[in-house]
């Protein structure tokens, strides 16, 4: 019996030493290399990372896009960016803290990070932070938001020029100011090229309910809408499904959503370049132009290529695209200002550019 025990013990020791043998060299190499390399590198060492919300990488939306911008900057600077994907909403604060401990610049996307970012920025006053799509008023936090109304204006133009029934629809997610920017810009766009068109506006009250999105889109279609723009997160999947089934046009949001439609019924998509935003923050940090606080918050618009439209399904005719380009130029040189609130829309006078 003792023989057996000894042999078992030996086997265990062998297995363990095998493991130790496997990993030791791997562990030592980076440790030995780093001190050797650091003096050789002349440029200051940058380090940055991102904390995602619970959606995580692979959401084909904000997180993916944000990470793409960070990776691009990382490649250019020869820095391996760090990534931390949150598993619980309650963990945003400690996760930001952990990231701030190991890198100089910590990025996060979405209004859900607002509170956590405030706390962490106070705790790590010597570190830098970047937050996208919301504004955090701290000296070491750079905030970037988007002029969604400008991008929405462009797709509004396309909708106004495309509709045959003179009726278009807007499906919003939750009824609050951020989403009003989409609604208002869109209406301004439609009215600019098609003053007599009717715009039906509905809100689903959610961002995560495709069934509700579909229901609302079908109802709008019944009232005559043949182009429907959505700004409603994954409710929009339902809007696009309805478009597929009934054969009207849908307009995507945030990313190019052409792939979501089976029958190529996504006319175009209003896109928010989250990757441009994260890249911009890293650029500011590298070029020492980093400015925190609400007063210095950037709002990326058409000019900065922060918003725009994309036509992944090749559905926008050349003459329509040409009109859009004219308006784009007018927005860029400041001759048109797009309204961003419902109050501004009331005083907005549609401008006709021929």
């Amino acid at each position, binding site marked *: *019996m003792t023989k057996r025990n000894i042999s078992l013990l030996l086997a265990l020791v062998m297995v363990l030493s095998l*493991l130790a043998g*496997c*990993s030791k060299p*791997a*562990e030592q190499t980076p440790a030995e290399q780093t001190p050797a390399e650091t003096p050789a590198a002349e440029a200051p060492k940058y380090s940055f*990372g991102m904390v995602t919300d*619970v*959606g*995580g990488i692979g959401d084909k939306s904000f997180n993916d896009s944000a990470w793409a911008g960070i990776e691009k900057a990382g490649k250019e600077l020869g820095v*391996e960016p*760090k*990534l*931390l*994907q*949150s*598993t*619980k*909403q*309650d*963990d945003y*604060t*400690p*996760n930001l*803290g*952990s*990231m701030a401990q*190991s890198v100089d610049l910590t990025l996060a996307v979405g*209004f*859900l990070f607002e*509170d956590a970012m405030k706390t962490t920025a106070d*705790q790590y006053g010597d570190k830098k932070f970047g937050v996208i799509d919301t504004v955090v008023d701290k000296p070491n936090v750079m905030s970037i938001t988007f002029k969604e109304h400008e991008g929405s204006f462009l797709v509004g133009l396309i909708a106004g020029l495309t509709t045959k029934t003179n009726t278009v629809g807007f499906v919003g997610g*939750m009824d*609050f*100011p*951020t989403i009003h920017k989409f609604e208002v810009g869109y209406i301004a766009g439609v009215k600019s090229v098609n003053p007599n068109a009717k715009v039906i506006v509905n809100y689903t*009250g*959610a*961002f*995560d309910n495709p069934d509700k999105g579909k229901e609302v889109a079908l109802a709008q279609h019944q009232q005559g809408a043949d182009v429907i723009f959505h700004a409603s997160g994954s409710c929009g999947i339902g809007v696009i499904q309805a478009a597929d089934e009934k054969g009207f046009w849908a307009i995507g949001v945030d990313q190019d959503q052409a792939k979501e439609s089976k029958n190529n019924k996504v006319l175009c998509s209003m896109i928010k370049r989250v990757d441009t935003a994260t890249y911009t923050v890293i650029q500011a940090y590298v070029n020492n132009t980093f400015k925190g606080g609400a007063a210095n918050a950037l709002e990326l618009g058409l000019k900065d290529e922060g918003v725009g439209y994309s036509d992944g399904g090749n559905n926008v005719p050349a003459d329509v695209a040409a009109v859009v380009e004219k308006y784009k130029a007018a927005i860029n040189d400041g001759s048109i200002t797009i309204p961003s609130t419902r109050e501004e829309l009331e005083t907005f006078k549609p401008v006709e550019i021929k």
Partner: protein
Amino acid sequence: MESRMDEIKSTLRNTIKEILYPLTAIIVSFIVGGILVYAFGNNPFAAYKALFLGALGDLNKLGETLVTTTTLILTGLSVAFAYRCGLFNIGAEGQYIMGSVAAVWVGWAFQGLPSILHVTITLLAGALAGGIWAGIVGWLKAKVGSHEVINSIMMNYIAMNLSNYLIMTALNEPGKAFSYEVAPTAKLWRFAESFEQFKYSRLHIGIIIAIIIAFIAYYLLNKTITGYEIRAVGFNPSASEYGGINVKRNIVLAMVISGLFSGLAGGIQTAGVQYRVNNLFGLTGYGFDGISVALVANNNPIGVLLSAFLFGVLQKGGPMMQIEGIPKEVVGIIQGIILLFVASNFVRITVQRYKENKEIKSYMKKEEVK
């Protein structure tokens, strides 16, 4: 006197055994997990180093780990308690959500109360909301016999959507996708207020409340008539009924108590950590983690304390592993392996089989000698 000593010795030995079995399973699963990490092309030693440094590296990290542990202790107790009555409470998740919403309402709506009173009613409201939510499931089971698993799962989604509705309407902070913040008087005392060492962590008095609750649950289950009845129903409802125990009453009671724990978890999370409730895009996961915690603890309230801490370490160490470039899924894999090994009782079975073999062999040897 002798026999007394022997008794103490044997209980001690049994307790050590009870702890040793899952402990061995955990060590084995860490080794297996390490092999897997290595197979994925990462260094297992670096991974575990990051895991433990991330969870226990300094007092702030430990504090954050204990914040998660607090919640897991309570949801773990919730699942364990119901299980001792033969009920599988998958609804801890929903009870947790109801608890957090009730707590945020009481914490926000009743301004100007003295802090002690306000904190107490905030936590009580949380516990009560969870208790009622679970009580509905228990009542349905007792009254019409519908299965608690199905009902409690459905109640999870009702809770989530109800919570989201309330947060976007009555409790909504205008323009935001979360609720109002609770009043300062409803916030739990944080260690950071008195101890500089915990400055960066959100560690709060809730951990002590959770530990006390675990001992209360232990006492309730093992030293009271109510606990005896609940356990009897768990062992054999028919026999209990025959023995004069009101089975239906005990089912409802066990569910309500179970729900109180989960609801309290939600209340503590709101009053101690979050101060508000977010619009949820999915279930929070604390209730489901509670199932794992209870399982590893073999549904023993004191064991729940240890297993909740283990899961706290895994969850809070995970982010550090990710920063070191190890995929977040690895933590999930290690958790899964631990669960598999502990739940399958494989250490116990292996030891038993080994002993049986030994006995048979020695018996055979004796036979040979004869």
